[in-house]
């Protein structure tokens, strides 16, 4: 652990600033997806599917399908925006644009680059979830002020999924290889982590697997915050997400360092 933390410094924020500056340069195209995505989901699933399934039982309470699903898509956005940033986008910066090489010619070290990317991935999760929360609020699907918990939550979960992305990037030789973990890891989480239906309806064995997946816990926490209905072992989920975030970050630092220094 000591060896991993050596050279970790606030200088990584200079890398983070670079990514933020690019984002702000392209803000018009960057803002559109998180603004439009919830609307699309709400129409397709909420109104489409919701007209078939009127109400749903969740944690001993009955609520409309739309209200149930809305927090799920915020959780999914946290995962997608951070994971995509540190897989496809980081890979483009590392491999095609050689941005990391340029940075490493300055007093910044590999650790600063990796941490900067990690923090930026998490930042994208925060930006996306905040925008989506705003959109869902306009649609009347959010309970205040408990929904504000989503912001710190998306920061921690953003670190988790960014770190997961960097771990994948560290072992990826070419950009098309990202498809495999996408289909084996990210898509199953998307489907089976309580986004579209409560995991409690799964058979016992699948339930055990579902609760191992980080997105299940993130969904669970986001839903509690957005519905304003703090029931159940929220602290356990929060600790699970935080611990995974730390462990995966340490692993990401280690593996990316190995990848960048040959």
């Amino acid at each position, binding site marked *: 652990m000591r060896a991993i933390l050596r050279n970790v410094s606030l200088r990584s924020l200079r890398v983070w600033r*670079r990514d933020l500056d690019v984002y702000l340069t392209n803000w018009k195209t960057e803002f559109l997806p998180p603004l439009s995505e919830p609307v699309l989901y709400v129409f397709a699933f909420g109104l489409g599917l919701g007209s078939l399934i009127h109400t749903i039982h969740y944690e001993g309470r009955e609520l409309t399908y739309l209200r149930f699903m809305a927090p799920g898509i915020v959780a999914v956005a946290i995962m997608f925006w951070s994971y995509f940033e540190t897989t496809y986008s980081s890979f483009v910066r590392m491999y095609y644009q*050689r941005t990391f090489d340029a940075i490493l*010619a300055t007093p910044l070290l590999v650790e600063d680059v990796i941490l900067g990317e990690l923090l930026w991935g998490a930042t994208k999760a925060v930006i996306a979830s905040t925008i989506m929360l705003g959109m869902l609020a306009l649609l009347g699907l959010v309970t205040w002020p408990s929904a504000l918990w989503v912001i710190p939550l998306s920061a921690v979960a953003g670190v988790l999924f960014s770190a997961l992305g960097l771990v994948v990037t560290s072992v990826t030789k070419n950009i098309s290889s990202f498809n495999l973990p996408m289909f084996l890891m990210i898509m199953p989480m998307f489907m089976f982590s309580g986004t579209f239906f409560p995991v409690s309806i799964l058979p016992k064995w699948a339930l055990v697997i579902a609760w191992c997946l980080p997105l299940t816990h993130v969904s669970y926490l986001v839903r509690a915050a957005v519905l304003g209905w703090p029931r159940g072992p929220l602290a356990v989920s929060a600790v699970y997400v935080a611990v995974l975030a730390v462990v995966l970050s340490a692993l990401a630092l280690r593996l990316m360092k190995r990848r960048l220094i040959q």
Partner: protein
Amino acid sequence: MNPAAIIARELTKRYGELEAVRSVSFEVGSGEVVGFLGPNGAGKTTTVRMLCCFLPPTSGTASIHGLDVRERPRDVKWLLGVCPQEDNLDPDFDVLKNLLVYGRYFGLPGRIVRRRALELLEFVALSDKTHVPVQALSGGMKRRLILARALLNEPRVLILDEPTTGLDPQARHAIWTRIRSLRAHGTTVLLTTHYMEEATQLCDRVVVMDDGKILLEGAPLDLVEREVGRTVVEAWNYGEEFVHFMRALPGRLEEVGDRLYFYPKEGDHIERLFEERFPHQERLIRRATLEDVFLKLTGRALRD
């Protein structure tokens, strides 16, 4: 010689089985301009990348102004300006913004970076491109911008990996002018190049590398004189008789394809000799160059 700016001792880099750099030792004096020559795959870039703290050496040591590249990478990189072999400008930013962001990596105050950036854009003749996206720049402009970027931290040592490869003559000369002016201001420069003329024009000293090793080093003109002499004769469309005649002369004879190269020990009278004996032989008598040294040392076989 001035105190050494760069010292490398038995520097070695192994990639698995392949030994890309083999126990290379050299020094670059403060204010000196040294060129590393060598065919593709000779190990120039690998050597340079170890000096820039990009690659940890497998064994051996390197230091910049007394700072070990492994122990003090942050401090070493403060002293260096680096132009990498491959363009790595930030395609998402315009020309000026590339410099501003780069200056921020150094932690330099924004005000200072902006002032230096504008001065440097002037220096590399890109002042009228300040807000042009970098994708819109020509190859030569990109190289100039990279040079400007490398100078942002006012480095004491400039490391240029093939600064002019792929550029047209105008663009190449534009870079040369800048390097000469930096030399005049006392900046130490280590550059790698494929262009012998570049090395001859710019460098106080050249180091010839091949196969991960240093074959030879010295001042460009001394090297030429020492290794191949002053004069080279090239001949084509020649007959047996001519070859016989040449063999008898003191010097080194080489036949490459349909061309004959002769490096005479004593070149002063060769012209007159030819006029007398083979006045109609198609030939070229010219001054020896670094290229002749290079080809003598590294052979004429193709490298990729």
